[in-house]
């Protein structure tokens, strides 16, 4: 098996990509995707440590995170639909009420 460090690197990379997506993208759908990526990165780290320590608690927690991510995605999409209905756009820059 590979050293845990490599898994953590991957996890970190995924997390950074996800964060970049959340912070930098204008399209709300892409932001939601980024959030999913972050959660998945956390999941991966969780599983890597679980494997390293031989403890199945990590696996259990990963299941929880998956369920949570699903629920959260549902809610997020509902918000997105609301946003679209209100603003006719899902471009976050345009949807802001603040003056340019």
């Amino acid at each position, binding site marked *: 098996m590979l050293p845990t460090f490599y898994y953590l690197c991957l996890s970190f990379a995924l997390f950074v990509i996800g964060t970049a997506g*959340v912070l930098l993208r204008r399209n709300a759908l892409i932001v939601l995707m980024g959030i999913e990526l972050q959660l998945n990165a956390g999941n991966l780290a969780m599983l890597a440590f679980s494997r390293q320590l031989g403890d199945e608690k990590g696996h259990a927690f990963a299941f929880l995170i998956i369920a949570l991510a699903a629920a959260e995605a549902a809610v997020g999409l509902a918000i997105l639909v609301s946003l679209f209905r209100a603003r006719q756009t899902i471009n976050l820059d345009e949807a802001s*009420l603040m003056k340019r």
Partner: protein
Amino acid sequence: MNAAESFNLRLIPLLPFLGATILILFGRRMKRGTVVAVAAGAIAAAAFLSFTAFFQFLPEAVEGGGLRDVVWKWIQAGNLSIDLAFRMDALSGLLCLIITFIGFLIHLYAAGYMEHDPDYARFFAYLNLFCGAMLVLVLGDSMPVMFVGWEGVGLCSYLLIGFWYTETANANAGKKAFITNRIGDFGFLIGMFLLFQATGTLRFSEIGSLSTVGSALAANYHGMPMAFWVGLCLFIGACGKSAQIPLYVWLPDAMAGPTPVSALIHAATMVTAGVYMVARLHALYMLAPAVLAIVAITGAATALFAAVIGFAQNDFKKVLAYSTVSQLGFMFVGVGTGNFTSGVFHLYTHAFFKAGLFLCAGSIMHAMSGSGDITKMGGLRKLTPWTHAVFLVCWLAICGVPIFSGFFSKDAIVAGAFATEIYGEGLAWVGPLVGSMLLVAALGTAFYMSRLYFLVFTGPSRADHETQHHIHESPGIMVGPLVVLAIGAGLGGLVGVPGGLFGHPEWNILGEWLSTSVGPELEVPHHTEMLFMGISTALALGGIFLAQAFYGGGYREPAKKFAAAFPEFVQLVRDKFRIDELYQAVIIRPLRLFSQALFQFVDRVLIDQLLVGGAAAVTDVLGRLTRALQAGDGQRYMAAFAIGAAALVFFATRPTLPSELKVNVSGSTVSVDASRAGRQSARGLTYAFDFDDDGRAEVTGTSPEARYTYERGGSHTIRVTVTDPRWHTESHIKSTIELGGQN
């Protein structure tokens, strides 16, 4: 004693104030008759009370310092305790009588004089207000109460001078009066402060008892007794209020006000406040004859100076104004030579004849359709007989013709000046000097007043036809008070016949009355008295005859020749020696420029641009910065969140070290302790101690303490590196130590 103590002195000023309040609030809706009834009634009531107090109650109470009425405790601050209290003794009683009686007469006169004025009620309201303030001034038991009255009359003077304020000139005259007064008031305040500092009290009774040799007031202060400085500062206030050099300039301009105002305020009452103040504080002034010398010399100089200006004035009221300034100078010579009784005596006689003269002026101006230009008068003797008769009596009184009141009072002052002994060796020349100046001034007085008389009442009329047709005598309500004043001017002096004259000191009723307040009458030897009476009479008659030669029946040859021979001099005198212009150039212009400079620089630049604008700019910049944090962009918020979280993680995983390494040096052995105070780190940190900073750790282990012995002395640097095995992070800390040099 009981009746005297319970006499409500407070009613005397209160009634006029009440009248003023009623007239201010409701006057506009009242009929003219009601307005006069309220105003004159208030004064009449005050007069009645004054007379009752003075003649019925005062004689018993006079030994105990007079009637007293404490209204309430006004100021209680540490050592300073001032009550709102009134006291009537002989001096203030006499002045009360003058103010209320002459005030009443003038109210009656004004009822007729201001008949056609639309602001009738406002006039009488102010007049009542003035009387109330003047009574407060005179009846005040302590200096602050007097000062309240002092300021009050200053205010009323301003209001009444500028009564017809729609004319800018009148408003300016009012401003000038008030501001000049204010300068004097500054001196008065300083005097009050000095007095309090020296004696700790401001009550007249206590000041009087403290004015003895050996008290704080006689103590040396910068070379002169304290009383000198107090008296000097207070006298500056008197110069402002009583129009002496250099603060007299407001009084001639004050003639812009209605004539009853000039008569009441600028002749009979307000301007005498300074004389009253000096007389009231006579004991204090007597402690410092030097300041009395200053008072006397200023008075004499003013008397002479103003008399000369009066020679060339062409406005009726201006002549009388300068005459007032001059006569006030006489009064100040009186009090300045220690002859307080004579100063007050002249105040009393002057009130009558000057008020009479001013009311005659009003009558004449009324007849001449509002003009006061004497170059266009003449021949009014037959056309305004009553006014002429009154003017005649008052004129003879002011010239000092025997038997008339002015003769006795003026003579008392002059004789007293020569006979005074209050000055020591060094200042003994002051008495004769001021006496001589007054004799010349008396001659001048006789001259210019006679000039006025002859130009106005004798000879053919120089007015144009239109005006001549309108000349008429004044109505009864104006003539009545005139006559009463004339009687006072004529006979009033008989209460003060000096003791030395006929060898009957008890005939000097006034002197006896006043002695309880201002000290005994100055003893003038009989022959000195007779001598000066003779000289005064001669000067008075001389002045009259000289004036007749110049102006009897109109402008005669001598007058015309003189005017032709010295035109510039005549013009200079007519321009009042251009003192106003001098003040304008020397004082007012620089002040204006200075305040302009301040305005431009301090106000515009410093305050508006720098401070106000600057504060706004700072707020603006800070606002812009903080606004960037809240752009409403959710992603920006998340970015801040992410950065914050990363920073938290970073700092949480560093191992902790104390901010300073604890180093114990003993000899060449050093023990180092790198544990954080109070918290034992239980996480198994690894410490590496590098004792000479060569990159190679001498001691490593899990203990935060280490010991090492150096081979050589000098300066060493200890570097401690601590590693956290779990996070694989490390921190450093350095410390430099000095060891005693050794091998």
